[in-house]
């Protein structure tokens, strides 16, 4: 199947007064048409910076090296004009806080039709009709009336629906959602996840879901990549990752989560210590100091190797986690 997005050997560095931060290290991944890929990791794992790098959205002190191929266009070497033809049109983006991505001074209709006029060349009447259609698709009630309201008149959940509708306006081939439900209440989160699943079914859009919440990934994604300290440590199908994790970190992460479907008779198996400081990454495997099965050879960085079809892990051990 054709890759919609393919990232190879991506390395991202930030210059800070305290020294260089190695945010993304040798990351390679791809997502196929109509596929949903989950990127799981804790803060500092580099899960967001991979895609900020890919889309040319890094902070000023950041530099990315590597290859990011989107339908034959190398995004990393593209000019801002070229990137602007891709971002928001062929790649849609949704972030955690919709308020920071919507313009508070413009009505929803103005913001939505602007995109359609700019990227798809519609006239204003057709653009308004299309905007209305997308708001209805993400189940914004009374969409016709809501179009003429300002972002602050929407609740958090409704604002996130507006963001999704805006991201879909140009029928992108790829939707990148970075913690899209993290700021929302659980009942609203469930509704937004249904909207995303529905979008994927109806439009065959590839979705990359970046999240710290394994539960969200379990519901929506077909394939999962687990990141730690800026590296991919494991990749597999959602069933492989949840039912047969191969990397000790993935296993530990699953065991440390409290679950709503389990009682509290057992202690949670907490992961000792803390994630490493990206300014002073220890030599070797970054998980080594917290890993219960670390060995002498873990002083060497383990390569990300194939252990099955589409199944990758970065651990020296042959045995499962």
């Amino acid at each position, binding site marked *: 199947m054709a890759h919609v997005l393919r990232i190879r050997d991506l390395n991202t560095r930030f210059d800070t007064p305290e020294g260089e931060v190695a945010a993304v290290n040798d990351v390679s991944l791809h997502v196929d048409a109509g596929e949903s890929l989950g990127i799981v990791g*804790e*803060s500092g794992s580099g899960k967001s910076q991979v895609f900020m790098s890919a889309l040319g959205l890094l902070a000023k002190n950041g530099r990315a090296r590597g290859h990011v191929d989107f339908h034959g266009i190398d995004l990393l070497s593209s000019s801002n004009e070229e990137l602007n033809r891709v971002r928001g049109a062929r790649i849609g983006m949704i972030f955690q806080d919709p308020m920071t991505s919507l313009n508070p001074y413009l009505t929803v209709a103005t913001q939505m039709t602007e995109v359609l006029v700019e990227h798809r060349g519609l006239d204003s009447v057709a653009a308004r009709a299309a905007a209305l259609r997308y708001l209805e698709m993400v189940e914004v*009630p009374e969409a016709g009336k809501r179009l003429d309201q300002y972002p602050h008149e929407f*609740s958090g*959940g*409704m604002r996130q629906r507006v963001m999704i509708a805006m991201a879909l306006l140009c029928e992108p081939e790829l939707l990148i959602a970075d913690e899209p439900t993290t700021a929302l*209440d*659980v*009942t*609203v*989160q*469930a*509704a937004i*996840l*249904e909207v995303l699943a529905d979008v994927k079914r109806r439009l065959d859009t590839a979705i990359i879901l970046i999240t*710290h*919440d*394994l*539960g*969200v*990934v*379990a*519901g929506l994604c077909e394939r999962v990549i687990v990141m730690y300290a800026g590296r991919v440590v494991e990749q597999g199908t*959602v*069933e492989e990752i*949840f*039912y047969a994790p191969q990397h000790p970190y993935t296993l*530990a*992460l*699953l065991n*440390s*989560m*409290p*679950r*709503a*479907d*389990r*009682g*509290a*008779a057992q*202690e*949670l*198996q*907490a*992961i*000792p210590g*803390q*994630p490493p400081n990206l300014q002073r990454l220890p030599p070797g495997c970054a998980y080594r100091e*917290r890993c219960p099965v670390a060995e002498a050879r873990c002083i060497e960085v383990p390569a990300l190797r194939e252990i099955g079809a589409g199944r990758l892990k970065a651990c020296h051990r042959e045995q499962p986690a």
Partner: protein
Amino acid sequence: MSAPTAAPILEVADLRVHFPMRVGGFLNRRDVVLKAVDGVSFALARGETLGVVGESGCGKSTLGRAVLQLIAPTGGRVLWQGTDLTTLDRAALRDYRQELQVIFQDPLASLDPRMTVGDIVAEPLTAQPGSPPRAQVRSLVKDTLARVGLLPEMINRYPHEFSGGQCQRIGIARAMIVRPQLIVCDEPVSALDVSIQAQIINLLRELQREFGLSLIFISHDLSVVRHTSHRILVLYLGKVLEIAPADALYTEPLHPYTRALISAVPLPDPKRERGKQRLVLHGDLPSPLSPPSGCVFRTRCPWAAAVCAEQAPLLREVQPGRRVACHFDAPGERAPGAAAQ
């Protein structure tokens, strides 16, 4: 967790926190009352954890602060070992401050950046008249730091030198140093990464066992609450909709809102998550400034009937230890929309 059975050390009866507010613009200005907490009652035993869940704006945090008298309740009683805290003045309350402590969500924001960890942790002791001598305070601080999993030699460092998980440990040390009997934990792990969350949850459970602590555990995260609580109180627009032992609430939620909440929690298990029946709520939480008449949940309830708009349901005992505020028995067993007479 099964609940300890003992006489309650805390009894909250018909607690109300109403805020007078002025809303509207120049022409339609009017005075309204925001009922953040509206008639909440519960009891808490020694060594027990009561989880408080609900969506943002339901009054969870206000409830916790009102129990501690950090916000003055506008009605009701808070009986702490027989004494009604709501009747005490500031000076008299001071005698109880050490017994009742609080831990907040944002660990770094709740610590003064200009104070050393030692001074922060010592503050509840030294802020009181009759504080022990300095050397004794310092050794107590070091012991407490060690007990919560920090190194005693960190005593002279500043909050910004610590990670989020360590800052939360500092917050716990500050609460624990006065040997409290009750700690209100307001979203104590919500800002932490998953791998650190478990460390803090386990620490709180250990401290509870060791010191017989009672905890009020406020959280929007239903997975965390199930793991930390003996009993759970479900709050919606300032009212209790259901209160039940933790396992019973999750395996057999009785109130429609509880059912919706629990079915919405994502499970880290692809087959279960994709196979589960979900009760999706339509519409948003109504404004707490103009709550619906009758049952506050009726505007989003799939089973709402005429009576629900007319009368507020009483919180009634439906099984031993389980109370539900709904006009109907087991509404979930009827098809949605098929209201009973």
